[in-house]
């Protein structure tokens, strides 16, 4: 039943997303990628971290998972190379998610994934990525990345830059297979992709 409703919602959202035309004045000030300066890179990741918080507004974690971490922090983990530097710590030190203070963890082992809510996956090799996905899909963990093609590989939300704007794509297959509930309203703004290569 739950799956069925989700399915329907996806179809609905898909129709909307097809006609979603990107504007030219999304978040301002618009970062200029041409400068390639460190400052502009920092700005891009600042926006991405803001986006990450906004994603959480459209995602519902299952009750026991929340219960387990009751009165605890909302844990954002980063696996692989961390492109944010200390931006995440800076941004989330003042910005709670779902009324909880945010804890940023940098992970080295797969088993640590089980405790986090959101997992940012840095640029890694295909084998590691596959392992991460295989492990993380057992838990209600929202996987986010900003590498080209990662959405097709199974990450839930993959951010990318288009016309100097940050946009995102959502993997319909992995999102619906996850233990998370992602609102159709988020899908409306996203580009929908499906898992390629039969990983899932």
């Amino acid at each position: 039943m739950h799956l069925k409703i989700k399915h329907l919602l996806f179809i609905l959202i898909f129709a909307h997303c097809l006609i979603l035309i990107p504007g030219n004045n999304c978040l301002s000030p618009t970062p200029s990628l041409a400068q390639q300066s460190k400052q502009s890179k920092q700005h891009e990741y600042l926006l991405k971290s803001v986006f990450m918080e906004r994603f959480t507004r459209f995602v519902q974690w299952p009750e026991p998972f929340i219960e387990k971490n009751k009165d605890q922090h909302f844990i954002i983990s980063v696996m692989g190379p961390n492109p944010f530097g200390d931006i995440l710590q800076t941004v989330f030190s003042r910005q709670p998610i779902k009324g909880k203070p945010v804890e940023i963890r940098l992970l080295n082992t797969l088993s640590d994934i089980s405790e986090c809510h959101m997992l940012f996956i840095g640029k890694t090799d295909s084998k590691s990525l596959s392992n991460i996905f295989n492990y993380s899909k057992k838990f209600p963990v929202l996987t986010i990345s900003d590498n080209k093609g990662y959405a097709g590989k199974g990450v839930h939300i993959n951010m990318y830059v288009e016309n100097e704007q940050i946009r995102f794509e959502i993997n319909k297959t992995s999102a619906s297979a996850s233990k998370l509930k992602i609102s159709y309203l988020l899908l409306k703004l996203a580009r929908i992709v499906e898992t390629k290569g039969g990983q899932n």
Partner: protein
Amino acid sequence: MTSLFVSIRAKLIAIILVVALLTIVPVYMLSGWLQYQSLKNELAHNILINAKVVGEYCVSPLIFEDRPGATDILKKMAHVAYIQSASLYDKNGSIFSFFARHTETAPPPEAPDYNDGYFMGSTFSIAVPVIYQGKNYGTIVIQAHTNEIIKKTRSFYLTLFPGTLLILCIAVFLAICLQKQISGPITHLAGITRTITTQSDYSIRAPQGKNDEIGYLYSGFNNMLEHLSQRKKEQARLENQLHQAQKMESVGRLAGGVAHDFNNILSAIIGYAEICLLDIDNTSPLYENISTILESGHRAARLTQQLLAFSRKQIVQKETLNVKKEIDNIIKMIGRLLGEDINISVIYGGENFLIRADRSQLEQIIMNLSVNARDSMPQGGKLTIETEEVIIEKGTLNYHFDIAPGDYIRITVSDTGEGMSPDILEHIFEPFYTTKEQGKGTGLGLSTVYGIIKQNNGDIDVYSESGLGTAFKIYLPRVYDASDEESISRFKAPMDNRICTETILLVEDDEMLRKMLEKTLSSLGYTILKAENGKQGRTIFETFQGTIDLVLTDVVMPEKNGIEMAMEIQRHSPELKVILMSGYTENAIIPNNLSDLNMHFIQKPVSPRDIRLAVQNVLDN
């Protein structure tokens, strides 16, 4: 002003039409209005839903500040025909995204307050918050045109119009058909009324109606007609009765007038005949002739008495009579008269039935009716005389009788004779009307009875059945006081060989009679003073030197009547004795208390014997 004639049919149709119009048109208008209202509500509801749905879709563009995405969503509103513009505001109230069907439309820069939608002119506006998971992200405002609704309402009216017209036409048709149910009987009744009034035919009746108001109207109308015809019949009967009474009255007047003069003439004939008889020997051949003249005179006198009785001008001496005693006496007399073939039976309803009447008149009534009964039973039969007490109550419809309410004694004289036909019954009380052979009856018998009864404030009713018999019913007022029963004295037997020396004043306008009276009285020895009228009589009384013992006067005279004169004289000489002579009472008031006034009365025609007896009696007392 004469009001225009509008038939009840037209009125009914008009009423039904007006009622139909007054109900159908408002219903028509109301249904249109309701339709308009429901369309408005529907519009408001639709737009509210649209606003909420679109608002929800706009949550993510608002969160991710995706203005093109929001505009994209708002543009979808173009599919909804009546939506004119949609604007999205962020949570700070600044315009975020806008869509308008017509490019010239500009959005209000500031977000309006939230509302559930309102109509202003031809525009509907609504402003709803954009809420996601209990959090407010902004406002969405939608404006819609109501032209569509107006157009729809108009088309609704147009669709409904033929139906409404059809219903109205049906109403008119039904009105025309159904009004006959109501107006038909009324129009019919009006037609009957018109026929009755134009043709004066009161025998026409309305048909039997249904059991409703019109039915009652019909039966009431018939009842009224019934009453009217009865009244008409009654009126005709009363008119006839009045006519009859007037006829009797005029005949009576004539008879009375004739009788008055006859009395004087007869007095002279009888008087002179009697004087002649005194003068001649009874062996003389003239004696027989004069006796015959005398006898004829007496017969004529009886006839005038009857005429007077009929004309109610007879001087009566009323006394209280016991009906039983009187009838007993009369039966003794009439037994012989009726013959052996007639069986007489008398039934008394009571012992003490008293009436106030003249004894001889009562005798005459019973006698006349009995003789009539005998004549109707030539083969013999049964004569029944019955007395009863009857109370005629006030207010009871009693068209038979022309008498006042009160207690009455009814004397019924019935026979088992031939009876009479209605034609004859109509005339029996008229004088000189007779069914008997010429010479056998005078035709005055029943008219005398009638006159006497009327004179005594009574009435007579006759009931006859051809071949079975006739019953006369006499009603006479009952009295309860027996004080003066048989108190009236009659002149006593004459005292012969009396020496008559008294002086008598004789007042009589009829010369012949005066001479006869003078001759009679002076032959007896009285001194006679003569006068032609009351005035002259009084003068003589006042100028006469000697004593006048008695005044003998006629009542009806020119100049001054006898009673007036006698009363004037008596004022001077109260002891003076007076004898009044009259056969006729018109214009003369004969006081009831004659004996108290020291006056006496003698009925005309007077014979010398009568006058002698009267004078002697009065003078001796």
